[in-house]
């Protein structure tokens, strides 16, 4: 084995008395890919940041970091600065906030070249064009003067990679580079990283929570939890024979199982006909409507008692708009029928009695609970609206029962949302929906903000509740693995329209449409779709 490019020994990071990273050691040779895997709060990101002295000012770092013959812990700021962006490149999770919105991407990449290589105008521009071409941005000549908001998410991440590669670094640190991207784009970006690594012989330190990516890209894996490195080894070995129980737990945590058995033929609980959500585009002094963005464009669906309809699609496909429109949280046209009642024609007040029967659980467990209300008040709020006759004690009993049903202790009711973790908060949100004993639940990406191990717990809980109460779900998700574990039937959406629908098992086994096949391949095998140029901004499908 050759001399390691990066060797980290006993790296610890403290925030006051809190230990964020505890004596982490690993080595990385040129051309190798090491994946740092862990759930949120495991200290994987702070490890990467502290390698280059980018940790928050309140943190104190001890240990040794040798990079290519230089000791980096405690090194002078000037030394670190000459290494950052030059010999070590970094890519972050959120491409929108990592790029400066008021400068063109050409200018931002050129700046890196100017700082470290002293390239001036024309030379820098020529090199930038080469880089944009290398990272697979179509028509670099036309794109170089674009601002970040004019690029799609995947293109922005490609621009970030171009910036990180500008100085041909020996080491590339990628911190969750694909988490904010759609599955097909994620597969493309991973492919790009891999081919660039082979072309330049770079070392790649890849930080992620997603084990399927690790299996796809990494040579070796380090598993972290609670700031400690619990297991390290070759990817094959770890996936085949995990030694540490945490690794086993992590591997087993992927959402699994089959949807709850469907009751015998029953009537639709909710159905739509030609449901449309069109947002007007207004231009000019008089704000005349010049066209529409068709978020949801003529969707027909029906969900039976006890059935889960999965809605999958990439971001911008209109799947969340569909869920909101069903509950009339955003205006729409077309028929919506809930338990035989017309929903669309009712006034806001006349709709209220129906709301008892349909509820929603949101994606973000931190945003969907009012921080100023106790858990008991949050869960009990719907009861005050729909069953005003209840006495305070009866209400408390119902709240307590709902909390027990989602697996929380009754005592949580007296506490406030900020005291709970993401998974517990999501349970509270589910309790809020369940306390009204609804018939139909819209689940808008209820697991995507959660760690894998928590995800499967929530999925199990939802399946359990469905079996017990014969609830109907509209399950919206971009994560096909989660959908597979819960949905009986499936609709695949793209640009507001239904591309494919049918029995979930049938679609997963034998997708009919090319788009569905792409989506499945990207999600389960991390295969990039053949047409790489496809990752452009979706055309603004407007009507004149």
């Amino acid at each position, binding site marked *: 084995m050759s001399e390691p490019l990066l060797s980290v020994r006993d790296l610890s990071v403290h925030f006051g008395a809190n230990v964020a990273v505890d004596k982490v050691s690993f080595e990385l040779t040129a051309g190798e890919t090491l994946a740092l895997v862990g759930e949120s709060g495991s200290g994987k990101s702070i490890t990467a940041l502290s390698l280059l002295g980018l940790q928050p000012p309140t943190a104190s770092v001890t240990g040794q970091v040798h990079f290519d013959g230089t000791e980096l812990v405690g090194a002078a700021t000037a030394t670190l600065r000459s290494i950052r962006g030059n010999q070590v490149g970094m890519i972050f999770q959120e491409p929108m906030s990592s790029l400066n919105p008021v400068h063109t991407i050409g200018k931002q990449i050129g700046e890196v070249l100017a700082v470290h290589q002293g390239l001036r105008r024309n030379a820098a521009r020529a090199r930038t064009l080469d880089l944009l071409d290398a990272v697979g941005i179509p028509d670099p000549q036309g794109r170089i003067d674009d601002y970040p908001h004019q690029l799609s998410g995947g293109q922005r991440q490609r621009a970030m990679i171009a910036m990180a590669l500008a100085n041909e670094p020996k080491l590339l640190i990628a911190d969750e580079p694909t988490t904010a991207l759609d599955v097909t784009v994620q597969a493309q970006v991973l492919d790009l990283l891999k081919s660039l690594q082979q072309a330049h012989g770079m070392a790649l330190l890849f930080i992620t929570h997603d084990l399927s990516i690790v299996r796809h890209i990494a040579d070796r894996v380090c598993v972290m939890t609670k700031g400690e490195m619990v297991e390290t080894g070759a990817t094959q070995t770890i996936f085949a024979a995990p030694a540490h129980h945490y690794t086993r737990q992590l591997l087993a945590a992927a959402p699994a199982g089959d949807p709850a058995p469907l009751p015998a033929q029953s009537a639709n609980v909710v159905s739509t006909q030609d449901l449309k959500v069109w947002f007007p585009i207004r231009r000019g002094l008089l704000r005349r409507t010049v066209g529409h963005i068709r978020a949801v464009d003529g969707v027909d669906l029906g969900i039976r008692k006890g059935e889960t309809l999965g809605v999958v699609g990439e971001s911008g496909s209109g799947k969340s708009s569909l869920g909101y429109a069903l509950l009339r949280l955003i205006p729409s046209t077309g028929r919506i029928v809930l338990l035989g009642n017309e929903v669309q024609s009712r006034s806001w007040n006349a709709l209220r009695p129906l709301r008892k029967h349909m509820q929603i659980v949101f994606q973000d467990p931190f*945003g969907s609970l009012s921080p100023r209300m106790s858990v008991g008040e949050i869960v009990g709020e719907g009861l005050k*609206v729909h069953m005003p006759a209840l006495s305070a*004690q009866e209400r*408390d009993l119902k709240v307590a029962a709902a909390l027990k049903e989602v697996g929380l202790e009754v005592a949580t009711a007296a506490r*406030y949302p900020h005291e709970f973790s993401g998974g517990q908060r999501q349970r509270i949100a589910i309790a809020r929906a369940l306390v009204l004993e609804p018939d139909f639940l819209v689940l808008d990406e209820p697991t995507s903000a959660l760690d894998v191990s928590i995800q499967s717990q929530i999925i199990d809980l939802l399946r359990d509740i469905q079996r017990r109460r014969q609830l109907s779900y509209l399950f919206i998700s971009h994560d096909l693995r989660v959908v597979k574990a819960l949905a009986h039937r499936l609709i695949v959406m793209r640009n507001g329209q239904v591309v494919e629908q049918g029995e979930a098992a049938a679609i997963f086994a034998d997708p009919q449409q090319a788009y569905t096949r792409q989506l499945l391949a990207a999600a389960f095998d991390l295969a990039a779709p053949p047409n790489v140029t496809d990752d452009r901004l979706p055309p603004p499908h407007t009507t004149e």
Partner: protein
Amino acid sequence: MSGASEIIRPPRLSPLNQRRLANFRANKRGWWSFWIFLFFFVLTLGAEFVANDRPILVMYKGELLTPAFVDYPESKFGGFLGVTNFRHKVNIDEIEANGWMLWPPIRFNHNTVDSFIAFPGANPPSWLLTREQICQRYPEGVEDSFCVPGNYHWLGTDGGGRDVLARLIHGFRISILFGLVLTVLSSVIGVVAGAMQGYFGGWVDLIAQRLIEIWTSVPSLYLLLIISSVIAPNFWVLLGILLLFSWVSLVGIVRAEFLRARNFEYVNAARALGVSNRRIMWRHLLPNAMVATLTFMPFILSGSVATLTSLDFLGFGLPVTAPSLGRLLSEGKSSLDAPWLALTGFLTVAIMMTLLVFIGEAVRDAFDPRKTFR
């Protein structure tokens, strides 16, 4: 039954508010300013018991009377005037012969003209004079039973022979009450207007915004001068006129808070639960906006007090008979030979403003989320 309730009801003060209170207490300057201000405020709220030209209690022929609250005709004590002058020697002798009376520590009202002042014109504070000088105009001089500390002028008198300390106490009370009422009313109106605009948005917001822009460009001071020359201004008229313009100060921030928060997921969740608009605004959105509002309130209060004082100073404020810090200041300006007038007015206004600003800073820091979660 009660078992579940005991577990489910949270403690009275939410943890967030407990932390805010702790933060407010931790700011020693603001905490002490708060208590000093509260002391002065409570003291002057009972101004009638501190500085009054009538006794608090009178025992007359076996009957307990409360002149501080009730106007008694002089005939009750054998005289003939409509209202008893308790500072008149005849009445005092009559009551003392048949009972007793309990005076407040300062035996002057803000309008009482002392007929026994030592010198003509403005009198210096009593602690600059000898007892002989103070009592020289009383019929029996130093021996006079009426020349007691309660009748001293601790901060001197103005040119009309009225006690400065009495005017100060009554003036402080009216300033703070005026400021408080104006602050509360303009906050209520401003919050309601801002909430409507922010929550409903669209045309409501657009039209209201334009109206407010036009309204704020009206030169309020000149309008005030014109109105006060047409209607004789009293406390409520002046409050109404100032309120016309002061309510807009909070609209902007409340509107912004509601605009920001109306699409929060927990607000959407409440909509999905079928909670009414009014209740969503009250339960879910208002607490967000209250942080900004409460942070601004002490500063609006001090601003209101300053406005009233400056209007009084210019002579366009409260009627001449009302006690007022502004008029004290303007008298101080016109009689420079009596520096105690200007000094008293200046120190009072300066200390009052400083206390309010310190309290305001402490409140602002207590609500600052970065401080809260440190």
